[in-house]
């Protein structure tokens, strides 16, 4: 039996997502900064990459990060996201059986960074990979809101819940699969072992 991560990885790759696994937050951070710089090349401009607030960034000095990757911005607005090439955000769950990322995207910046730029870097805790859709749905809603086995369940699903499986795609012209219509043309998933389900590790 493949592990949840292995299944997630092969499913996600099958729909053209790129999957990377790193053990610590520090390693993941270096990986992401390298990635941004490599994508940036000589095209350095403010808000080349926009990073939406997330537990991964907790306690990090974002100004120092911008110094290391000059186009990186943490102020996500309609304007900055629509001119950015890269969007970065942290997702809540992964689904092993479809290679899907799940995120409570009620905060609008979470949606802006994953819809408007052409590259989306999605961070997810390796531990947050659950078997399937049914498991994910019960994390976000259980009828009485206090299902003891699922502590994440709430009395109401979040106003905006996003499921992302691979990059944006279409086959509307001659059934030819083409990546990157309205959303990102590259989805780079960074799985981090050190992170826990809802944020940084160590706290649970």
């Amino acid at each position: 039996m493949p592990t949840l991560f292995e299944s997630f990885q092969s499913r996600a790759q099958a729909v053209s997502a790129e999957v990377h696994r790193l053990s610590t937050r520090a390693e993941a951070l270096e990986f992401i900064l390298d990635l941004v710089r490599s994508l940036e090349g000589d095209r350095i401009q403010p808000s080349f990459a926009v990073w939406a607030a997330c537990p991964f960034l907790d306690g990090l000095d974002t100004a120092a990060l911008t110094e290391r990757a000059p186009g990186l911005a943490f102020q996500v607005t309609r304007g900055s996201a629509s001119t950015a090439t890269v969007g970065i955000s942290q997702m809540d769950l992964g689904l092993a059986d479809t290679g899907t990322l799940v995120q409570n995207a009620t905060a609008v910046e979470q949606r802006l960074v994953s819809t408007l730029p052409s590259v989306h870097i999605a961070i997810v805790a390796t531990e947050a990979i659950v078997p399937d859709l049914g498991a994910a749905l019960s994390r976000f809603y259980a009828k009485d809101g206090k299902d003891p086995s699922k502590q994440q369940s709430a009395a109401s699903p979040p106003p905006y819940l996003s499921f992302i499986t691979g990059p944006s795609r279409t086959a509307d012209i001659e059934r030819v699969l083409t990546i990157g219509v309205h959303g990102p043309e590259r989805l780079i998933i960074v799985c981090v072992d050190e992170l826990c389900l809802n944020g940084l590790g160590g706290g649970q």
Partner: protein
Amino acid sequence: MSSTFKQSIDEAVHNSNLTGALGRFSEAYREGRAKAYEGVDFEAVRTRIAEIKGGAAAHLDELADEFKQNAEARGAKVFRASSPEQVKDYILKLAKSHGVELIVKSKSMASEEIHLNKHLEAQGIHVAETDLGEWIIQLAGQRPSHMVMPAIHLTREEVAEIFSKEVNERLSSDIPRLVKIARRELREKFLNAGMGISGANIAVAETGTLVIVTNEGNARLVTTLPKIHVAIVGLEKLVPRFADVAPILTALPRSATGQLLTSYVTMISGPAPNTDGSLKDLHIILMDSHRTEMAGDGKFQQALQCIRCGSCLNVCPVYRLVGGHVFSKVYMGGIGTILTAWFDALKESDDMQSLCIQCGNCKEVCPGKIDIPDLILELRRRLTKDNGQSPKERAIFAVVNNRRVFHAMLRSASLLQKPFEKDGFIRHLPLFLSGMADFRSLPAIAGKPFRDVFPTIDQSEVGRTSRSARGLQAPQQTSPEQAFPERALESPRGSGEPPHQCTDRAAFFAGCLIDFAYPEMGQAVVKVLNKAGIEVAFPDEQTCCGAPARYSGAYEVAAKNASDNITALLKQDVRWVVSACPTCTVALKHEFAATFESLGRTGEIARAEELAAKVVDFSTLVRTLVEEGRLKLKSGVDLGTLTYHDSCHMKRTLRVDRQPRELLQFAGYDLVEMKESDMCCGMGGSYSLKMPEISAPILERKLVNIEATGAPLVAMDCPGCAMQIRGGLDKKGSAVRVRHTAELIADMVE
């Protein structure tokens, strides 16, 4: 059938872009779908969906109230609209009051159903479709040709042409480049639009949640960037619980496009923040527009279990040939015919329903477990009731319903056809009849029908001969052996005496084609059964099984046929009623009771069921006889290769496909499977006469698949398919021979 309809069919089947794209897609779809469902119990998933959506359809009003309450508690505004006009007025008023000049839309069938764009554009509000296919269609001023892939009928060159005009720039037909152009053009519109309109794939009552499924990501932008979001939701999208989303999302992408999940699924439960910090102005319109009416119809309520995946289109042999435009309505294909009859008007579905060949492919794959072919038949029945039959049909059925006249006419036809007949085929018919034969040769009507051949068959060697083999003289008394045939079988045989072989009796139901065109198939059946120690009766009063009448909507005629046959066959003291025609078998086994039920003649159902219990198709019975050791096939003979064609009724109603294959392999044939062996051959009974322009290309595809196997022989269990395929091969000058399984087995019984 209107002449413009016939003309649109003609245009479609001659549009090679369309038939090529649809044909390729439908072949790829079959594999893609199967792969996507690997490891998923499709039957379990669709049973769950049918329960959820069937239950919802029975409580639309309560669910709509519950949805409204819960969505409003979360800050959405919910408007329940009974008519399309109310929906259009609501949106127009909303747009005007907010000064909206540009609206971006993600795909919504409900909005197409009510022709929303036209209404808004007429009031000076610009509406941009943002699904790539929909946008192409909008720019081209056309209508979608597929529910999931609206522009599947257009080539890349045509799309390049359309885009070039829009952007005033000469574009090449490079697809990724064209997609980039669409991204650039539509991105501007997303950022500037004052309102976003979407549909929804699911609406959850207990949480007021909308579920929206897309691949391109346009729905995420439509629901994020403009400050107003309007979702138009047909009432049939309602489900009670949040957990009900899982089975529907398991099936929808797999059935629609062979994906495990679409790139994006968005679940909206109340307004989320806009980019300026305000909350979304979220309006949800629950649209009835005849859905409640449909739910109130006992027969059609199940159509609301549809999840709009379009799989009924993708597997349809007719749709993949003609595409969506021939349907000339918003909804197309099998389910589209049914929805049009309700959302539009019954008579509007008249042309569309005539396209259905009743092959049953759609029923097999429907994730909502809707019996689409049956519902189309019901439409046909209601239309026939409303409009009456055409004079031609009335004349035909008057004859079919009078057994004596019908049989006399078929006999005299065998004489009249002489001038046109050659080698047992009719290749050219005079005048208007020629349309029936010009894509295939028709069988000559046999000089001596099976009913005249039967009395000449010597069955004296079969078991005891105390009774006449003639059905007409069957004894009224039941002997213990007849009442308990299993026990009779076990009775010991004395060693010195002549074998005391106890005999089972079976009545043979020939059906019109075997009786009048292929009596040799009937002879083969009798020979095989005799060899197994089964005496065959042929009740002379048997008549047409009623399938042609039923499939034309003439249920009264079908009921008369049923009633005559039940009387004739139940008079017989037999263990089985055997047929070598799957269509007849289905009629006898399943449809007699259904026809009576549709007509409210419930008193006759019990007798229909009594008959049904005895009915069995040739291959199933003979496979059992071989297994029980009652019938032996010659062994050790290498008969070479053959391929097998599955008849629609055999495979999908009777669920028989293994038995004839095994029999033929036991007999010594090497089976080579053809591509799409269970795809309809285009016969469909009288369909091939009414729709020769569709029947012919469907047959052509079948012939290509048969010939591609290289086998010199194709076997099948249906005389109708044999007529179509044999006629097609003859016309083509092909050397491939066509045989009924019964004929091939009859050659090999010991």
